[in-house]
């Protein structure tokens, strides 16, 4: 089985925030690979570090955050090594774009939508004439099924769904090969969310996009990802193809997470949650960060972070329960 070269490969990424009470180890040794055309869902609850991973990939971390180790290789170049200026000129938006959750405030409230789209295009593709830019923008708007009047509108005049489509249009403006959807549909109503996700599926094919989908909602991941990566408290717990993840989750956290999700079908009795609370990230447990809440925890879990075990093709788990497959270590 030949695996194509990944478009994005994140290796052992760690991010630390400086904060009042000391350093917060928000992301620890995260390794992710994303092949061209694929869609990876990065799922995790609050504090899991999933959005920090996205920010690190785009080098948009806040001032008090720092990548302490690891590489972010995109199409053969380590983004972590690039200067900001270089990143701005060649990579941001031309190669990597992002759609944020907070769509209603994601554009300047006092400038027209068209002006802001045009401004970005002008910046990224200075060679285009005004007419060419106009043509490109109108084309993209149509691609995301927005009426032309959006150009003349201000953000507050658009509904949540339209605004989110606008943000997708903005992301696609320079037809980047890679797109991050960071909780892109979280603020939307059920029906609109489904609509936008369907739209994204269509655009993924149309624009041949490779996407990293970040969400706390496994339903969203199920709707749009090919494979799933689960994060907990800054650590990557499990990576698996979507079907395998939902049918046979391996990590105790993954299992508990899926069990917590209320369903529309099947048993409706009591929901099961995960007792306990997130560990404090400025002083994380030395071993597996899930160990304090894990029903299967054993002494060695708290000793050192468990390694990743490969338990099936494309399926890795960071849990010592899978130590009986030593030959499958990656």
């Amino acid at each position: 089985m030949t695996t194509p070269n990944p478009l994005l490969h994140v290796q052992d990424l760690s991010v630390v925030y400086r904060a009042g009470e000391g350093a917060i180890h928000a992301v620890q040794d995260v390794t992710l690979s994303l092949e061209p055309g694929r869609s990876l869902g990065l799922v995790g609850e609050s504090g899991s570090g999933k959005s920090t991973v996205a920010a690190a990939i785009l080098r948009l971390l806040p001032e008090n955050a720092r990548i302490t180790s690891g590489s972010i290789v995109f199409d053969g170049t380590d983004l972590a090594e690039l200067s900001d200026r270089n990143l701005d000129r060649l990579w941001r938006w031309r190669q990597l774009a992002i759609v944020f959750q907070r769509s209603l405030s994601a554009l300047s409230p006092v400038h027209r939508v068209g002006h802001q789209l045009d401004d970005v295009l002008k910046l990224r593709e200075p060679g285009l004439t005004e007419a060419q830019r106009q043509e490109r923008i109108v084309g993209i708007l149509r691609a995301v099924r927005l009426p032309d009047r959006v150009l003349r509108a201000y953000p507050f005049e658009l509904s949540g769904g339209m605004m989110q489509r606008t943000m997708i249009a903005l992301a696609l403006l320079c037809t980047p090969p890679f797109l991050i959807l960071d909780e892109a549909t979280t603020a939307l109503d059920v029906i609109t969310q489904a609509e936008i996700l369907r739209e994204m599926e269509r655009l993924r094919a149309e624009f041949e996009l490779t996407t990293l989908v970040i969400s706390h909602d496994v339903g969203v991941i199920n709707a749009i990802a090919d494979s799933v990566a689960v994060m907990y408290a800054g650590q990557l717990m499990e990576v698996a193809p979507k079907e395998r993840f939902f049918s046979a989750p391996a990590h105790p956290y993954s299992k508990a997470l899926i069990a917590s999700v209320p369903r529309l079908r099947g048993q409706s009795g009591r929901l099961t949650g995960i007792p306990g609370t997130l560990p404090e990230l400025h002083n994380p447990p030395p071993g597996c960060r899930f160990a304090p809440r894990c029903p299967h925890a054993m002494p060695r879990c708290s000793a050192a972070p468990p390694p990743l075990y490969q338990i099936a093709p494309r399926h890795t788990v960071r849990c010592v329960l899978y130590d009986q497959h030593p030959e499958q270590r990656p």
Partner: protein
Amino acid sequence: MGRYLGRQLLTIIPTLFLSIVINFALLHLAPGDPARIYAGQDIATEAQIEATRRALGLDDPLPVQFLRYLKELAQGNLGISFAYRRPVLDLILDRMPATLLLTGTSAVIAFVGGALLGAAAGRRTMSRLDLSLSFLSYTFFAIPAFWLGLLLILIFASKLGWFPTSGMRDVRAGYTGWRAWLDVAHHMVLPTLTLVLVQMPIFYRITRASVVQQQREDYVTTFRATGMPHGRIFRRYAMRNALLPTVTVFGLSLGFVVTGAALVEIVFAWPGIGRLTLDAVFRRDYPLLLGIYLLLAVTVSLAILLTDIVYAALDPRIRLR
């Protein structure tokens, strides 16, 4: 937009009327009998006080006085000053140019300077620039204007001799033509500096806070992600958003420009309306005070209107909602 303006204009009229009623009532109900004051408080006989009361038109019942005032007002007559026995409008107009020159100039400089410095500090919080500017802003905010004024006089007029001590022109020299303008400009420096220094911290702090807040807004992150340089995001987007609250405060402060800055006018012997107002208060010069208050109400209303227009131009959410 037209509808919006029409609406705003319509609300000004009742506002003005209300302010006239309230001013009139407050003045006349406040303690202190102008007749007694104008007759000379201790030595005047009751007959003299009564005569003064009649002369000032204060012997009629209050409603009659109010209706008379309204009637005069309707004919564009602001009345005759108790103290100066001259039309209130003339007295105000006498002082208007000096007032507008000083307070207007300093308001504009304070606004522009405060906004620029606030923006510079807000862009890089905790930088050396930010820390020193913030320290200065707190310092000057805490200094009473008249004290600062005197300090500037002692340093720049008495010690260094760079600027004249006070007044608006060199009374001895009596310049004419362009020299006269230069002379006024020379006299303006210290009072303007005083007002700018005490007002700038307000604009500085509002702008700084607003810039800091705007830089945390999601759209800034969006544009950062597109690879737009900080400076461009700041100039094109954050600054305009950040200026909204500053503009509001500036607009309101413009409304008060006509009333001058009494304490600074006193320290620098600047012939502005602030001093006239203060004197009128002490003298219980009702017509003059009513005139000044009415002027204030009008200009504040207009300033609010203007601010609304500017705000609406800057912020479509106001304009279109």
